[in-house]
């Protein structure tokens, strides 16, 4: 995919011809990334789609140096990721990764301890740490009353939000989320989606979303990359991908029904200004046509 380089926008992430093989040299070596190229602008939200085993997880582990490329390179705000300890420490402040089921990684006795764990390693004062913990909790829709609670006494959705808060307390400029809504109930899911939108719109955080949920992708991201067998096989603007029946079929995606309704009504002569990316937009557009 060719993306026009926009001089006005900073490039947050640039991945060039990235290759990675697990267990290299052993009989069961597995080529996870064959050649991946991608570009993410600052403040943008992109989606990475692909089947289980397509290389999505391997790719995101390269974005904060958990894995180092066999060949090719990964640049974050123009700086090439390398093995230098100081560099990596700084990198992990910039790139926050929320792995799948992040609540499984909660370990402390109180929410405060969990969320403050990252900032405590940054050499901040107690006041600065406390301030970060509280603002991160508020960002994810929780409040002061949670500070002293045990993470294990919380609901699934709350635990997930505490886990995200513990990443946000590092104030990342780039936030990578791997299946952030999987296993959540519908309202828990709505809350997480709202949170990610807020981070993008109000805090200008660059978002990289890995997801199987077409609804989440449609509602959140501007552009999509599709990974297959360790390569980017397709990419483009989210709405145009969902309009393109061929690529939907070819890559086993599914079109959310709410989006289809918008397209159908448009064909019937409705004045649709905004594609139906979620139910709220659909309502707004339909009401305008009916009044």
């Amino acid at each position, binding site marked *: 995919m060719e993306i026009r380089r926009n001089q006005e926008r900073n490039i947050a992430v640039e991945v060039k011809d990235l290759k990675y093989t697990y267990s290299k040299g052993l009989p069961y070596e597995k080529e996870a990334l064959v050649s991946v190229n991608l570009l993410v602008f600052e403040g943008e939200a992109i989606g990475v789609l692909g089947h289980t085993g397509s290389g999505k997880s391997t790719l995101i582990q390269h974005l904060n140096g958990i894995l180092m490329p066999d060949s090719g390179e990964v640049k974050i705000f123009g700086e090439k990721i390398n093995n230098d300890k100081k560099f990596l420490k700084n990198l992990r402040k910039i790139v926050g990764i929320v792995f799948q089921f992040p609540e499984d990684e909660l370990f402390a006795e109180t929410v405060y301890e969990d969320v403050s764990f990252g900032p405590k390693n940054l050499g901040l004062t107690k006041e600065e740490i406390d301030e970060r913990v509280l603002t991160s909790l508020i960002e994810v829709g929780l409040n002061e009353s949670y500070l002293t609670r045990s993470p294990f006494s919380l609901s699934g959705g709350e635990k997930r939000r505490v886990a995200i808060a513990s990443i946000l307390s590092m104030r990342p400029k780039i936030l990578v989320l791997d299946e952030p809504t999987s296993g959540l109930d519908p309202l828990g899911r709505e809350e997480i989606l709202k949170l990610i939108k807020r981070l993008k719109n109000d805090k200008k955080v660059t978002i990289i979303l890995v997801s*199987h949920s077409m609804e989440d992708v449609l509602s959140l991201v501007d552009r999509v990359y599709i990974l297959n067998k360790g390569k980017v096989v397709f990419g483009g603007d989210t709405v145009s991908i969902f309009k393109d029946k061929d690529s939907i079929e070819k890559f086993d995606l599914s079109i959310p029904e709410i989006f289809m309704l918008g397209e159908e009504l448009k064909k019937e002569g409705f004045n649709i200004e905004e594609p139906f990316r979620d*139910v709220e937009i*659909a309502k707004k557009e339909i009401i305008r046509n*009916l009044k």
Partner: protein
Amino acid sequence: MIELKNVSFSYYLPEKVDVIKNINLIVNKGEFLVIIGRNGSGKSTLGRLISFILEPTEGEIIIDDKKPKIDIDYIDIRKKIGMVFQNPDNQIVSQIVEEDIAFGLENLNYSEEEIENKIDEVINEVNLAEYRKFPPNFLSGGQRQKLAIAGILVMEPQYLVLDEPTSLLDPKGRKDVIELIKRLNKEGITIILITHRMEEAVLGDRVLVLNEGEIFLEGKPEEVFKEVEKIRSVGLSPPVFTYLSYLIKKENINIDIKLWKLEEIKKEILQLKLKI
């Protein structure tokens, strides 16, 4: 038939936590029952109680007129009821697809021929025959979940409990697994499906909404999901077009709140447009 009589389940943290509170429920043979509820509502615990993985703290569960004991009647239970979980990789135990399917049979004194026959039958049922000699990690997520189901089916259970079996799968895998579940139900297996996906919940003959360990709503999908405000008050949301019709109605436009199919709601909205 499975009957739950005044079933409760609690654990100690060390203070007592009541997960399931005095539930009475009958699951009829051949039924497709869906259980929904927010995270922490007790769904998975209820699923584990129904499939005799957990024993109730109070009350009793009767399956086909018997009250089996988990520790004593283990094999009889597994021949009657199986449970499938979210992550297929936690349920796959062998290095080769056919061995994995046969795993449950190996201690049951079947002859090799009988085992072969049973594998044949089940592997065709789940459409994995061409992968018979492959390692499971060669399969896609959806195929691995079908393999996990095959490992249960080989015991020929009449009841199958599935706890969010599609939540980790991509759209194709999800569709495949749901098609399989529907087919198994048509063939007479009783299905108890726990899910967060409302488009799956509408497939059931009956939907049970669990909240804080109690039955909050129960009925046919079209009855349950009409109750939009009630459903949303317990952390859930109805299927997207039901919710859309609810939002439109709130703007004083006369539209039914029900389970709409795409074509139906489109027609309805076009009709509404003609009236203005």
